[in-house]
């Protein structure tokens, strides 16, 4: 493992995290723009999300009468954990020291911590919508967990490690091979990601329709900087899953050293991958309709089965 005393490495890692956070709104607006163009609407400008953040941070904070301290702390914890998760994911550089801080399972755990507080915040004010949102969010997250874990297992078995850097390094070292385990794992991860980030067909970030909404229902009561933090966390989460998909399964181009050229290359490569992924997501969301709430478990069952098949095929077909 990298030596922990290398200051430059730590600085670089921090910078990369900052870059990650900075790029998250870009990714969301990119998806939004493509959707708009596909739906023949006038797309918002690239700077839209940043403007929103500025406005929200400036606004004053309103609190519901029944709100408790949990309600006020939640945004910071949600956002903080998400940033932490972002910081341990190799973004443009593989061997970041943060990656040693936590492996894939801890990554899932960190996101779960954020979700826990998000759901509590939803229930705090005591509105029926908030409770509904929390209930649905937690339920689907719980169902998504096993699938996610099996994906991690498949990767971990492949590279005999749960450390993200190690996994990526392993995939890079491998000669390009068509591995069913990786293929199914990729599909499963995408499905899980859709559920976790609340995109169509599971949830619709654009509506506030009581029958459909999950994530939005929990943050209905938030205003000002609190709302901004929540939004940022959501966008970051979407980007995290995108980056995971990109870097774990098709990591080619990512830099393994700290020299500028390699980093530049890997940044370009990553941007390209994300662009493609975002476009795919937008197309998907345009083509598919939102599904009924109780079809989501089936959706997740599919994800789990895919992941399981991936793992089993690793055990049976790609046996050592």
């Amino acid at each position, binding site marked *: 493992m990298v030596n*922990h005393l290398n200051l430059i490495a730590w600085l670089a890692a921090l910078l990369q995290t900052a870059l990650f956070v900075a790029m998250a709104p870009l990714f969301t607006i990119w998806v939004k723009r493509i959707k708009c163009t596909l739906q023949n609407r006038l797309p918002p400008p690239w700077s839209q999300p940043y403007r929103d953040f500025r406005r929200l941070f400036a606004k004053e904070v309103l609190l519901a009468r029944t709100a408790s301290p949990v309600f006020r702390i939640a945004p910071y914890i949600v*956002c903080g954990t998400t940033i932490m998760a972002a910081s341990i994911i190799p973004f443009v550089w593989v061997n970041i020291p943060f990656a040693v801080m936590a492996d894939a399972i801890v990554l899932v755990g960190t996101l779960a911590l954020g979700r826990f507080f998000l759901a509590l915040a939803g229930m705090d004010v005591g509105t*029926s919508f908030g409770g509904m949102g929390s209930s649905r969010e*937690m339920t689907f997250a719980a169902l998504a967990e096993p699938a996610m874990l099996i994906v991690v297992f498949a990767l971990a078995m492949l590279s005999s490690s749960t450390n993200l850097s190690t996994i990526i390094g392993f995939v890079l070292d491998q000669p390009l091979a068509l591995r069913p385990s990786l293929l199914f794992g990729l599909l499963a991860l995408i499905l899980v990601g859709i559920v976790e980030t609340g995109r169509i067909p599971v949830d619709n970030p654009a509506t506030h329709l009581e029958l459909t909404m999950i994530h939005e229902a929990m943050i209905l009561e938030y205003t000002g900087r609190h709302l901004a933090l929540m939004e940022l966390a959501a966008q970051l989460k979407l980007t995290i899953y995108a980056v995971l998909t990109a870097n774990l399964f098709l990591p080619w181009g990512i830099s393994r050293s700290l020299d500028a050229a390699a980093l530049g290359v890997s940044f370009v490569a990553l941007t390209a991958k994300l662009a493609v992924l975002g476009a795919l997501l937008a197309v998907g969301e345009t083509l598919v309709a939102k599904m009924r709430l109780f079809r989501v478990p089936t959706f997740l069952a599919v994800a789990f089965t895919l992941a399981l098949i991936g793992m089993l095929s690793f055990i049976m077909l790609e046996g050592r």
Partner: protein
Amino acid sequence: MPPTPALCLYLAIGFALASSVVSFAADRFPVLLRVGSFALLGASSIAALAACILTLTGNLPFTGELPLGLPWLHWQLRLDALAAFFLGIIGMVTLAVSFFGPGYVRSYTHGHSSLGILGVMTGLFIAGMQLVVVAADAFAFMVAWELMSVASYFLVAFEHEEAANRRAAFLYLLMAQIGAMLILLSFGVLAGFAGDFTFAAMGNTNLTPIWAATAFGLGLLGFGMKAGIVPLHAWLPEAHPAAPSHISALMSGVMLKVAVYGFIRLVFDLLGHPHWSWGVIVLAVGSVTSVYGVLYALVQHDLKRLLAYHSVENIGIIYIGLGLALIFFSAGQTTFGVLGLIAALYHTLNHALFKSLLFLGAGAIVQHGHERDLEHMGGLIHRMPWTAFFFLIGCLSISALPPFNGFVSEWLTFQTALQATTLESGVLRAVIPISAAVLALSGALAATCFVKVYGVAFLGQARTRRVRHAREASAGMVLAQGLLATLCLLFGVFPTNTVGFLSKITLDLTGYGVSAATSQGWLWLTPIAPEVASYSAPLILLGVLTALGAWACVYFFTRRRRRTQPVPRRDPWDCGFGPLSSRMQYSASAFAMPIRHIFRPAWRIHEEKIREMDPQLATRPVQLRYLIHADDLSWQFFYVPVERFVQSAARQVGRIQTGHLRHYLAYSFFTLIVLLWLIT
């Protein structure tokens, strides 16, 4: 003279017994119980902790003998690392309880339940548990074990005015008895080969495979009955809520662990080399138990029942770890076997801490909010902030969220399961990850369940008047929860040191430890190797603290402005509905509804919709109430049939006693003839 483990051990047991003795007079002088008895319990727990620490910090295992028991076999005591560890667990929880108790039992001083019994039995209960873990021969073990069971039975039956509690106590005692008999038989098998009841002799025998399997099976059932593995758990959700809350904390937090101790002692110490099928069985049992427990917890709305079902779940998680350990040991992969064992032990410790924390919190709520039903709570965070804070920590820990302790043990379990790739058998390699997925599912469901608990109980608005006027618990009760909460955090943030201690235990028990785990220093926990997997809880904590710090800064900077105009409070928007009333909140049953819908076959749900009509207008309902209750399937499929069978057998047998003298004479006559015929 420096305190030796032996001295501390005897002190611990002595103080516990003393506390039960002083309580004899508690009926007349309640203050004796509140002050004397609990103080002695505290002393006992501190002594126990001292014994634990002294033993784990390098003292030799202490072996002793009490002049009790059979004439040719006095009680053998042995305080080795494993025993010390469990002694420590007992000590920690008892310490918290001894802070919590004085405030809590105040509510009983006016009832007509006898305080004396409460104190006496509590002391005996704790002494019994301490004796179980240090007993080194089958007889002493059984006596201590039964002492524990009987004492706790009296505590379950403490508030015996309610028929439900009587029933719970009966069920509990019955199953405790059966379990004890099974354990006795399993020891009997070992003793039959060893020719002696001492564990030392039993450990040195090598049994034939069939008898080893028999002993294992009996032990699994016997100890499982106490630990509450499905389907032998039925007593648990009945008995734990029935007892006073600090006793529930002891039962759920410690007594179940004592059962786990017994199982570990039997399987890893006495039985010798395990067979791989044992591991698979334990793994399967554990997986089923964990999911079953959490699913039933989700549909409960009685807080203490819910927590009891969560104990079932956590026992399942512990058994998953043990199963993994057995599998790896039988395959000769000792390193990973030890890792599994450590994961199980770690989770044992954690569950002891957070489950007792939660039960104490529940106790505080029950005492000051006079409610056990979640559907009637709400908004308690405004009334009892400290309890709310510590309860939150408990929820985070039991939901296995970093950086708290629950996460570490589950993470270690996952890491062990990941090593399945090193096994030869492809089947095992495929089965283990699935059980890990089950573990993940139950973990996530637990998180769901505790969002429900915390959200419904502490957040939102109060749903009943008494809850609306609840008061914060007394200082001692808060202190007790604080203690446990701190421990939860510490054991979560410094896993490396903990694992270091635990590997001492495994070294003492199996002869192997995990050196790699702590090789990278206190900051990094690397169970197998740094590049394989690593976890740095302190850094995660740092991250969380940074977030909180950010909030603190904002809070600080906006303070001046707030003094001039405080943060405006408005009615919630709620999509334009409103005004908001407490009855519009999402209830516990509503929260769990999606889960109920998805896992429909897992329960038998009884729904009941009561509508009271307006006396004037028969078509207009004035009040609607929705009751939901989930039956435990194990009754339907396991207990009721057995009960029916016994009943019918009894009825059949009753027929022989006709009341006619001539029939009786005929019995004697024919018995005579048959016997005479037999011998010719």
